[in-house]
Every structure is written in structure tokens, then in C-alpha cells.
């Protein structure tokens, strides 16, 4: 699911026609005004419909508070390869074999109810996770111990280097309050954290955070942050046009000219999610159809005219993609030297596509479509109803593929049905996007989408690896990487080389482009937003930890 605008698309699925009309209607007026008091930042996170109060940081249905109220030990920036930003922790180090993580804690931090923050709170939080499997989403199974008031160790049975970003991003809760809380069922109406903001008031249509004057990092300059609920990203775009919100992450009409249309606002795009044609690639696990032939997947890769796709389907907000799924250019350092083509070609390479297909035994039939053993090279792409940019992309790919002798049909279905087909392997191709791990490192993407433990036979619900890629060398390389420190570049690269060679060879996810995540924000009333010069966090309002960092950096202008 593309975080970029999945939310908008969901609303659009229910009201596709209306959304399109809304775009047309709201796109042509340039009126924009202030958004109330300039100390108050009004944001729209994509919440569709009313809020139901829930500030439990371990609940999957929480509505907020991560990073703003409850802090973690460190902040990991997934937008750029950087050292983690110290929050409640100040230093962290693994022992030699990656089984003991030592963390030094910040001194002089207090909870917003006045109690002091200590190492016991950290130990309590990790013990709580381990004791409550229903909230242990990271699968933590170590032993936490307080060495003294400001030092904590986490001890594991096996090397856990790659788990560090997840572990250190755990929200820390106060022991003196949480010892009586049921972490699975309590909605924590009155959250007490260490963060830069506290909850001021909650209403189903909006909740408001206010600056914590005793914050250890100094009181934030933004005095209040209001989170609105609207009906979807379309309504968010309308609110930008009316000047009633200061920040939303999602597309607005005529996005290239945001500043001309709405002088108070600017749009900023970053690229985190590789849009792909996911394929049911593995015949051994029960996939059927021409796409089980790697030559067909490669031919599709070369048949795409990505420049045309970008302008027709993605409003020119998409970016280059690497066929081995390192983000480009921020993760170029991880690309294997053996990969001759680190960026997918921007224009269609029909000749290359033909060569590959003919080399694999396909021959052009009388209607210009390839055939092999009587089977026509005809494929169906599954796409979600109402996801207009993906639908346009599929139509564009279909006409481009036809030039290369591949016939493509589109099949639209509801999000639920599409998800079900994809996970159960009852599809040929599905347009979708991949996502990154907790920090800027390609290991996580490989481990999510290419490890054989995250897949299963067709008919059963697979994990993230719905392409059903299964390669013993890749599994072994991933296992080896998990016992190497993230900063040991020299030791890790050979394993990345192995993975990338296999990913390129097999191409179970055919890269389209890297999708842009666009934030539209009020630059007239607030400064300090992330930029190319200082990309201190991934700029997306729905990405809670990043959003909290940004809120701390912002300064109201008069």
C-alpha cells in the first residue's frame, strides 16, 4: 500500500466520481487565509471520520501521542543515512557479538506529572512488552536490566544488531502509572509522557496538544498542535485551499505550482516507496501464468516508458527507481558493483524486451503478441478501485507493453478483495508499493519482501513476501546480515551483493518508479520544515516519530 496517498485513495474508492469533481472544482481558486492563531499548528494526518480517544502507545488503533507525548530512546531518520538522534537515551552500543545492547539514559528528565524518569521505567517498558505478547509487535524476547539509574542493558540469546532501530524506537512509559494499566485494553485518556507536548483536550473532531514548558530539550516554539479529522485526503486538499490547515501529506491539484496557487504554502516531496508490479512469481509454490517466467518479468521491466508514466499517472512526483530496491540516490552506497544498471531506464527499451523474450523461447504470434507452447503472453494486473493514479499507471503500462508484444488487462477490485487476492497468491500481477524499515538501510526491505519465511504456498495467506520469492542464498545472506552491526560496511557488502544479484536475476517485484510522498505545508506562518539541505526527518505527517521531530523544529512567524 502506498503511504503516499493510500488514504486519499481509500476515500476516493467510496466516492470516486465526487473526488474527481472535487479536484476539478477546488483546483481553480487561489483564495487562502490564515489558520487561526499562528502559535497553533493545524495538521491533518489523514484520519477519515471521527477520532475515538486512544493514546495507548502500544495499541494499533492509537490516534496519536507517539513521539510528541511518549518518547523513545532514540529517533531513527529513514529519509537519510544518519546517526540516530538521542532522545531519552544519549548513547547506545552493542557488545562484540550483538547480544547485549547498552544504553545510557538522559539525566534530569521528568514525566509530565512531576515524577523523575529513571532506568526502572525503561526496564519496566521492555518487561511489559515481553510479558504481553498481544502488544509485542516487534517480537522482543530479551532481558532488560538497570545497571544504575542512567544505564540499561538489553540482553539477547542471539545477535540482534538489526533489531536495534526497532528496540530503541519503543515508546517508554512511566512505571508508577502503568503498573496498574492493562496495556491491551486501556485507552490512556490522560497520557503522561516525557515528550515535548502534552494532551490539552480531546474531541471526536479534533484533539489538541500543547507545549510542555518543562521539556528537557526546552519548551517547543509551537505552542499548540491541533489534529483535525476530515473525511479523507480530498477534504484535506480542500482545507489547504481554504487555509484552514497548515500541513497535510497527500496530493493536491496542480501540485507543481502549489506556491503560485496558494502563496502561504509550499509542497515538498520525498521518495520512500518503490512502486512495483508484484508478481506471483514462484511456480513451485503454486503460482500459475506467464509471469512465473523470469524473462516475462524482465521484459515488462524494459517495456515501461517511465517518463511517460510519471507525467500521465503520477503528476511528475515520482522518482528514479533502482532494480535492486536501494533508494536512489540516498542509498546508492549499498548497490553492488556487479549491478550494471543501478537505475531503471526512463524510456522503453522494446528491443531489449524482445531479445529477452525470444531468448526464453517466446515467439511473436500473428497478432503481435508473443506466444510460447500455445500460451499467449497475456497478463492481468490487479488494481484497487478508486486508486486513480494506479489505474492510470496500469492503463499506460498496458499500452506500453503492447508495443513490446505483451498483452495486459486491468482488473479492479475493492481494497479488501485486492489485499486478499494478493496475500493468497490468487493473482498474476498486482500494482503495489514496497516500504522501508525503521532506519535508512536496505536490509529491512530485503528482509520484509524477499525472505522465504515471510511467504507460503498459494492459497494460504502469505506475509509481506506475497511474490512468493524463495531463494536459499538470499535467506542465508539475510541471516548473516542480522548478525553484523549496521555500520560494518565492509563485512555487510558481500551479502548485499548476493541478495542483489538474486533480486536482479529473478525480479519477483517489477520496479516501476519510486513513489513520491508530498507534504503541503504553511511556510508563511511556520519555518523550520525539513528540506533538501537539512532532511532531519521523513516529511510525512502520518509518520508519527518523524512528525514529532518536525514539530520540535518548527518556529511560528509572528
Amino acid at each position, binding site marked *: 500500500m502506498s503511504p503516499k496517498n493510500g488514504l486519499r485513495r481509500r476515500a476516493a474508492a467510496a466516492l470516486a466520481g*465526487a473526488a474527481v469533481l472535487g479536484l476539478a472544482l477546488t483546483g481553480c481558486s487561489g*483564495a487562502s487565509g490564515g489558520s487561526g492563531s499562528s502559535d497553533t499548528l493545524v495538521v491533518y494526518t489523514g484520519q477519515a*471520520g*471521527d477520532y475515538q480517544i486512544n493514546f495507548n502507545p502500544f*495499541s494499533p488503533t492509537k490516534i496519536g501521542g507517539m513521539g510528541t507525548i511518549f518518547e523513545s530512546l532514540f529517533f531513527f531518520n529513514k529519509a537519510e543515512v544518519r546517526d540516530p538522534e538521542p532522545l531519552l537515551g544519549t548513547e547506545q552500543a552493542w557488545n562484540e557479538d550483538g547480544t547485549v545492547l547498552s544504553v545510557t539514559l538522559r539525566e534530569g528528565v521528568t514525566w509530565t506529572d512531576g515524577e523523575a524518569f529513571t532506568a526502572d521505567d525503561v526496564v519496566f517498558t521492555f518487561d511489559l512488552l515481553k510479558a504481553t*505478547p498481544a502488544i509485542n509487535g516487534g517480537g522482543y524476547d530479551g532481558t532488560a536490566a538497570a545497571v544504575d539509574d542512567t544505564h540499561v542493558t538489553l540482553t539477547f540469546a542471539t545477535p540482534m544488531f538489526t533489531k536495534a532501530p526497532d528496540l530503541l524506537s519503543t515508546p517508554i512509559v512511566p512505571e508508577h502509572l502503568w503498573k496498574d494499566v492493562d496495556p491491551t485494553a486501556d485507552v490512556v485518556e490522560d497520557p503522561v509522557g516525557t515528550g515535548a507536548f502534552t494532551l490539552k483536550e480531546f474531541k471526536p*473532531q479534533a484533539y489538541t496538544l500543547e507545549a510542555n514548558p518543562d521539556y528537557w530539550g526546552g519548551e517547543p516554539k509551537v505552542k499548540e498542535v491541533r489534529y483535525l479529522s476530515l473525511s479523507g485526503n480530498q477534504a484535506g486538499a480542500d482545507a489547504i485551499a*481554504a487555509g484552514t490547515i497548515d500541513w497535510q501529506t497527500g496530493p493536491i491539484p496542480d501540485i507543481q505550482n502549489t506556491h503560485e496557487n496558494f502563496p502561504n504554502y509550499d509542497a515538498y516531496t520525498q521518495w520512500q516507496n518503490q512502486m512495483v508490479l508484484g508478481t506471483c512469481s514462484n511456480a513451485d509454490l503454486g503460482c500459475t501464468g506467464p509471469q512465473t517466467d523470469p524473462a516475462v518479468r524482465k521484459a515488462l521491466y524494459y517495456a515501461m516508458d517511465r517518463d511517460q508514466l510519471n507525467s500521465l499517472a503520477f503528476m511528475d512526483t515520482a522518482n528514479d527507481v533502482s532494480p535492486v530496491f536501494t533508494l536512489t540516490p540516498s542509498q546508492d552506497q549499498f548497490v553492488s558493483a556487479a549491478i550494471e544498471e543501478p537505475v531503471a531506464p526512463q524510456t522503453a527499451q522494446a528491443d531489449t524486451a524482445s531479445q529477452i523474450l525470444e531468448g526464453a523461447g517466446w515467439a511473436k504470434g500473428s497478432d503481435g503478441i508473443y506466444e510460447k507452447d500455445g500460451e499467449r503472453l497475456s497478463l492481468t494486473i490487479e488494481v484497487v478501485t478508486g486508486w486513480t493514479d494506479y489505474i492510470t499507471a496500469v492503463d499506460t503500462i498496458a499500452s506500453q507493453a503492447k508495443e513490446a508484444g505483451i498483452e495486459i488487462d486491468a482488473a479492479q477490485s475493492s481494497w*479488501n478483495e485486492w489485499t486478499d487476492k494478493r496475500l493468497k497468491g490468487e493473482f498474476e500481477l498486482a500494482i503495489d508499493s514496497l516500504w522501508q524499515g525503521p532506519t535508512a538501510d536496505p536490509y529491512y526491505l530485503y528482509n520484509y519482501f524477499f525472505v522465504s519465511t515471510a511467504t507460503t504456498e498459494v492459497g494460504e495467506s502469505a506475509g509481506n513476501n506475497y511474490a512468493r520469492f524463495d531463494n536459499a542464498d538470499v535467506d542465508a545472506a539475510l541471516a548473516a546480515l542480522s548478525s553484523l552491526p549496521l555500520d560494518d560496511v565492509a563485512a555487510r557488502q558481500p551479502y548485499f551483493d548476493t541478495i542483489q544479484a538474486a533480486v536482479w536475476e529473478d525480479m519477483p517485484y517489477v520496479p516501476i518508479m519510486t513513489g513520491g510522498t508530498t507534504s503541503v505545508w504553511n511556510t508563511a506562518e511556520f519555518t523550520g520544515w525539513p528540506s533538501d539541505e537539512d532532511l532531519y526527518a521523513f516529511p510525512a505527517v502520518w509518520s508519527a516519530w518523524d512528525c514529532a521531530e518536525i514539530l520540535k523544529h518548527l518556529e511560528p512567524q509572528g
Partner: protein
Amino acid sequence: MNYFLRKLSFYAVALWAALTLNFAIPRLLPGNPVDILLAKLQQRGETVTPETRKAYALLLGGDTDDPLWIQYWDYLRNLAKGDLGVSVSYYPAKVSDVILTSLPWTVVLVGVATVIAAVLGVALGAIVGWKPGTWLDSLVPSTTLLAAVPYFWLALILVYLLARVLGWFPLQGGYDVVLTPGWNGEFIASAIQYGFLPALTIVLASIGGWLLGMRNMMVSTLSEDYILTAEAKGLSPRKILRSYASRNAVLPSVAGFAISLGFVVSGSVITEQVFSYPGIGGRLLGAVTNNDYALMQGVFLFITLAVLGANLLVDLLYGIIDPRTRARA
């Protein structure tokens, strides 16, 4: 058998059938709530690993392992106790709480708008029907045109003109979020200001139906013998209009009105989407996209009860108002 008892037993059977369908339909949807929840989390930029899936499957409960008939039995038993279950998409909130925070918005907005549309439509229809063939008749095509235009299109045009261009009304929302909801003048004034435009769109879109129905009934009632008699007696036209013609012509509209009240709860999905208005329609939409069975069942239950209740009321009222319906009792 007594007319009322017969009606009541029919409604009991209808209720049971509706409850059973209500149980079955959500379960025919593809997908499962955990997958949807994970997809949503991942949209928010959180890490989703196999462990996450395991944890949340555990958290939300694996009741899907029970055979269907046990689930059905539990469902009926809990309903009898008034327990609608726990919402998955708003976990751990109870379905009844989720619905009750949204329901008043919908009932007031759509309810008031429906009453206004019906009263205005019937009154105008009576007047137009009283003098057919005059310029007043042009009201019929003009209001039916508004009813024929797709509702969301009408709503979007009005939003664009009245809220965006002229700035007379707020663009979206149910009240000024700076205010605290409650029984105070400021909040109520704000709620009225925010609700005016959505209510206007509903009234404009539905008034045509009422007007047309009432006008046609008026025209046929006017040709009845008793109207002629009334005129021959020398009653004032005003009295004939009110006490003779309208009272007889309005009967079908009363029935229609009660039924449309039943659809108040369900008829707000698009209104709420266009205006970002809080209410039950948005909840229903969210429940469907999140495979939140319990919430879906809860909302459907309210809709079913509202429709059945309104129909029952009409049937019973008709028994009193119009003796002919009791004839075979």
C-alpha cells in the same frame, strides 16, 4: 386475529430475518481485519513484521476459529443483552460507544432536513395542485430536476459556490473545533452554522419528490365528488383546500414520510463524505473498508431497527387513521 397482534408478529419475523442477514453479510466480505489493520499501520510508516501480525491477531482475538453456528448463537445472545461487541478499527472501544458518539449528529442533521423537506414539499405540493395549469406548475420540473441531479454533484456545486466562492458557510466539519461540545449557546450556534449547508443540500435534493407526490394526489382528490359537494355548500376555497382536499391527499405522503425517517440513519454516507461531517455514515464506510464486522453489524442493526420501527409505526397509525386498513380484521 387482532390486526395489531398480526402486525406485531409479522414484524418479529422480519426482525429475525434482518438480524440473520446482518450476521451473514459482513462475513461474506473478502479479507480479514488483521490484514487491513496491518496495511493501515504500514501506511502510517510503522514497521510491520511477521511478529506484528502475530501480536495483533492475538490482541484482536481469534474468534474466527469457532464454527459459524456458535458465532451466530453468541451473536444473538449478546444482542439480547444489548452487547454489540468491540470494534476492531477503534479497538478497544465498544461498538455501542462508537455508534452513540456519531448517531446524534446524523439523527439531528438528516432528521431535521428530512422534516423540513417533507413539510415544505407537501405544503408547496398542495398549493401547486390546488391550481394546476398555472405558472406555479413550473415548480414541479424545477424541483424534480434538483432531485434528479446526482446528490454528490449538487452538494459539491453548492459547497463550491456558497462555501468556497462566497464564503457564507464553513467548508467542512460539524462545529468549530475550538469550542467544547455541550448545551451552550455558542456551540449550538456553531453547530447550526456548520450544519446549514449540508441540510440545505438534503432539502434541495429531496423536496422535489414530496412536491410531485402531493401535487398529483391533490389533482386527483380535487376531482372527487365530496370536493364538488363542499364547493356546492359554499365553503370558502381556503377551507376546502385545508380541511377537505389536503387532508385526504396527504395520506400517502404520511406513509412516505415515516418510511423516509427510517432511512435517516443510513442516508448520510455521501453527505458526511462531502462535508467531512461527523456521523454514522462515515463510521459505516470506515467499518466496511476495515472489515470491522462488529461495527458493521452494529450500524446495520440501527438501520434495520430504524426502518422496521418506522414501518411498524406507520402500520399502527394507519390502523387508527384509516379504518379501511382494518377491514379484514
